[in-house]
């Protein structure tokens, strides 16, 4: 069995940051493996530990910088990685879910997986769309926001719980091959061991241009035209001073409202 996991590197803004044109200034960004993808990788690796002959391959649309992040997934137990990138992608103001889906579908078509795991959303752009778009592109079945997964590979069915709003879960049987978007909390992601980190350095990480995969990107339909810090609608009153001072002011305020008295 082969499992493809789509993984993306996400950018997190520092507490204080500046916007430079259409993105946050590089100096204020830290990059990491997307939280949801960390759970997806763990789920795939656990399936590999429970079944015989499972290969876990990760796929990323991202620049060379992302390789460090991809190696994290390899260090946690993925077997191989594929990365797709070129200059046109690098120049885009944003890469829409449809484009990512086409590129990831081209990778999936080469790999021919039985199961594809994506994250529910990427923490920075949070489109929440790539996994389901990929399923449609591949003609696979799918399920979004999965927080429990029971795989019956012989029957070709994944029995999942989809986490709906308000503490309700939907129980659904999904025919394989399928794309599942994985929700946080589905498992306990491991930390990479030192041995895992060492091994990850020698695991294969193949790089392709979209053209190598037979994908002609064409014109992008979405473009980012502005980026700013949202104007705060609230008029928050801040307590200022040392921790002792602010704590005392807040306590006084709360006690006046009858809290803790």
């Amino acid at each position, binding site marked *: 069995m082969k499992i493809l996991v789509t993984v993306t590197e996400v950018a*997190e803004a520092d*507490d*204080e*940051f500046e916007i430079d044109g*259409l993105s946050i200034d590089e100096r204020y960004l830290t990059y990491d493996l997307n939280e949801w993808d960390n759970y997806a990788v763990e789920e795939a690796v656990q399936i590999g530990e429970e079944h015989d002959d499972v290969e876990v391959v990760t796929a990323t649309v991202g620049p060379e910088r992302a390789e460090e992040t991809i190696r994290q997934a390899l260090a946690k137990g993925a077997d191989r990685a594929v990365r797709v990138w070129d200059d046109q992608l690098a120049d885009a103001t944003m890469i*829409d*879910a*449809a484009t990512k*889906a086409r590129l990831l579908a081209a990778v999936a078509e080469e790999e021919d997986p039985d199961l594809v795991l994506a994250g529910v959303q990427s*923490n*920075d*752009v*949070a*489109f*929440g*769309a790539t996994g*389901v*778009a990929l399923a*449609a592109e591949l003609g696979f*079945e*799918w*399920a*979004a*926001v999965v927080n429990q997964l029971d795989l019956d590979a012989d029957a070709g069915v994944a029995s999942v719980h*989809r986490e*709906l*709003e*308000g*503490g*309700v*879960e*939907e*129980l*659904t*049987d*999904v025919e394989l091959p399928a794309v599942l978007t994985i929700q946080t*909390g589905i498992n*306990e992601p491991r930390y990479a061991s030192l041995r895992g980190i060492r091994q990850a350095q020698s695991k294969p990480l193949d790089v392709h241009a979209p053209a190598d995969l037979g994908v002609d990107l064409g014109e992008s*339909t*979405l*473009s*980012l*035209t502005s*980026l700013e*810090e949202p104007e*705060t*609608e*609230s008029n*928050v*009153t*801040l*307590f200022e001073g040392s*921790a*002792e001072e*602010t*704590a*005392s002011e*807040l306590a006084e*305020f709360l006690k006046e409202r009858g*809290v803790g008295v």
Partner: protein
Amino acid sequence: MSDVLAVTEHRRGELRDVSHELITAGRQLADATGGDLHLAVISGNVEEYAEKLDRRGVTEIHTVDYGEEFNHDVYVQAIEALYDAIGPQYVIAPNTVNGLDYAPAVAQRLDLPLVTDAVDMTVDDGLSVTREFYAGKTEGDVDVAGEGALVTIRPGEWPGAEGVGDAVVDAFDVEVDEGAVRSTVTGYQEVGAGDVDISEAEVLVSVGRGIEEEENIALIEELADAMGATVSSSRPIVDNGWLPQDRQVGQSGKKVTPDVYIAIGISGAVQHVAGMKGSDTIIAINNDPSAPIFDIADYGIVDDLFDVVPALTEEFE
């Protein structure tokens, strides 16, 4: 091609609030394009839903009487058929767990550009959608090239439509291809209740990922004890197993409306805010002044929680 099609949402026999918000957002778009507003009502008790959705501004309501509950394969086919029949310029859907389970597939099949989680939309030369980037720390405009688009709207951003309408109700027949329905909903399950019901609490001390380690949760419990408050949390704390599931506030947890909600080390992600924005007084303690929680807080302290929380506990002891 100037009409708007809005796909409404229901679950287990009830229309969801976002359906009425979709009417408002859809009307806003249709006014800008000079077109009509069509609603789609798919599966379940469609006639009852159609009656409730007949609010001011709706032109036509298309009901697809097939199946009881949401199934994305049915939704995809029904929306595609409606799209072909109506030929709308824009399709809008809710940015909910189910909305995100069909909208990307519909966009892909109809070859429509997709923008999710819209908080505002304007039509000038073309459609421009405002949405957040970088975990709510920034907001940007996304321009859509070409004629049509599919947009999912963030729940709670548009007011629900009111007034009685005079929409035409059209029972729309879709030949559902059963062979293409490759997923089956077998049931529902509710998250179990524990010993405390946080939605009943008057004062909540809520802890987020800023607490860093499981053993530090004790700091929050001591504060809550001293104040006579109840402890709740954001999602990562529950994901990590540091507090039971019934303590989680937010979209997939509980909705709470206490007199006082103190968010400690919580950034204020939209899915968290969905569960606590109705609190009377919101207080945030966070060392990041750009954290979105300060956009909705009434009072705040920008400082290290490990300094503030023990000092606050002391004030109440």
